[in-house]
């Protein structure tokens, strides 16, 4: 079966972000960018499904500026077969991303769509669910285990208070949680081979999707800094401070 994986180019998760002085956003100039960590897990899961003989072809799709092709090439080096780049320099919010992905789903007709559960920039946690809604598919969000069984997929989900397993009719949408797998690294030969794999570029207009944002960001501010604390010498002082100064115990 064909598996579609969506990946997003985001700021590297180790970078300490800075809010721009004019409060229009976060400063992304000259900042290291990478594939969103949850998307890496999504690619890895697709590759494992292929290695098990469950998936026959892995198509990876990304929406964003020209530079997002780097992340598609990374996914190709990890084992995806071909890429689709929906090129735009505009801001694409979750609903519009879901509509673009829906158009790709209609063209490609995958049996399984895998996304990360959230991107670490917008922290929305919406696109997978929205794509499932728009395509009329079932959704297995926050997956920590994915088992394809005939015309169904069993997804174990990380929920508050434990793990819930659901069975979804295929085709279905799955979003990955951290513990689904540990992504592999791309080897140099595979990075070289990935350069020769096919990568189609298209625009939102080619897919007939309007991407005007409906959430308007008025300002972006740095959160209030915590007041610097103190170091205590020993347990007795700590207990004293908590009891008499902070009065929390």
């Amino acid at each position, binding site marked *: 079966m064909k598996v579609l994986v969506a990946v997003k180019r985001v700021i590297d998760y180790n970078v300490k*972000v800075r809010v721009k002085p004019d409060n229009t956003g976060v400063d992304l100039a000259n900042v290291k960018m990478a594939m969103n960590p949850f998307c890496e897990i999504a690619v890895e899961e697709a590759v494992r499904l292929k290695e098990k003989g469950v998936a026959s072809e892995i198509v990876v799709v990304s929406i964003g500026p020209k530079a997002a092709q780097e992340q598609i090439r990374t996914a190709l080096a990890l084992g995806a077969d071909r890429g689709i780049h929906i090129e735009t320099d505009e801001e694409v919010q979750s609903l519009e991303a879901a509509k673009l992905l829906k158009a790709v789903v209609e063209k490609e007709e995958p049996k399984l769509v895998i996304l990360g559960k959230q991107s670490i920039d917008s922290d929305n*946690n919406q696109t997978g*669910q929205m794509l499932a809604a728009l395509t009329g598919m079932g959704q297995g969000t926050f997956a920590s285990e994915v088992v394809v069984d005939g015309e169904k997929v069993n997804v174990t989900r990380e929920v508050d208070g434990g793990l819930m397993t659901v069975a979804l009719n295929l085709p279905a949408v799955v979003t990955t949680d951290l513990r689904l797998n540990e992504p592999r690294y791309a080897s140099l030969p595979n990075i070289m081979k990935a350069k020769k794999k096919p990568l189609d570029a298209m625009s939102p207009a080619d897919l007939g999707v309007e991407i005007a944002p409906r959430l308007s960001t008025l300002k972006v501010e740095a959160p209030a800094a915590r007041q610097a604390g103190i170091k*205590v010498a020993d347990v007795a002082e700590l207990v004293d401070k908590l009891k008499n100064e*902070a009065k929390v115990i």
Partner: protein
Amino acid sequence: MAILVIAELDTQLKADTAKAVNAAKQLGGDVHLLVAGHQVEAAAQAAAVLDGVSQVLVADDARFEHGLAENLADLVVSLGRDYTHILAAASAQGKDLLPRAAALLDVSMLSDVVSVESDDTFVRPIYAGNALATVQSLDAIKVMTIRTAAFDAVGEQAPAAIVAASGGDDVGLSQFVGLERIESERPELGAARVVVSGGRGLGSGENFALIEALADTLGGAVGASRAAVDAGYVPNDYQVGQTGKIVAPELYVAVGISGAIQHLAGMKDSKVIVAINKDPEAPIFQVADYGLEADLFEVLPKLTEQLA
């Protein structure tokens, strides 16, 4: 202007619902609470006494048992067109359900709202809480999840009217297979007044007993960093951070936790933060009100003893 809040149920009404109702109250308007599930009479009664709720809609049907998003979203969409705002707590269930409902209504959505500025403008954290965005929604129906750590629970009132509701179909896309619940007698992590968290510094799952002893002495919940969860010391629903639970207790004690950005995202709004770590350079000390630079194996038993 009417606001629909989706109640969250376990076997009973979950405490987070009272916090989402608080956010709804701040919008100013009639607040209706939707209680959807199977055999949910007790939850409906508990929902009716939440302060500010003017009506409880009860959708009692086997297809809503287990809270599967596919059927619930269909219900929310069938009811939701009469409302200007649809809210739920930003819990695993709220995050699963609301984006699906929003897309079916063809509206965008706001996740993890921490402040209500007006009926169309809200504040939400982005980049793991390292920036706060003020966002205006241009949609007719505002759909949003509420970060419960940022709102107090509402009190009680005389019971509001309870009316039966139905709508949507059994869409048949998913089936519940099983739930493996992690049992705990301690307070729920999200609602606890005190949270004691352990990290990789604990070294093993057995050593988490030291964390548990301190938590029990303080009547608190036990949390963990991702490193401790990945190492298998504790189950994953203990995890505090960008990808786990967001907590804001009165007292947060971080033991053997370095303080990576992703962990800080989940606890830096705590009122008082205590860090116990033997590495003086650990970033956790930069946010801690009280830092104790020491070997946790030496000081934890002493601390527990002195607080007992």
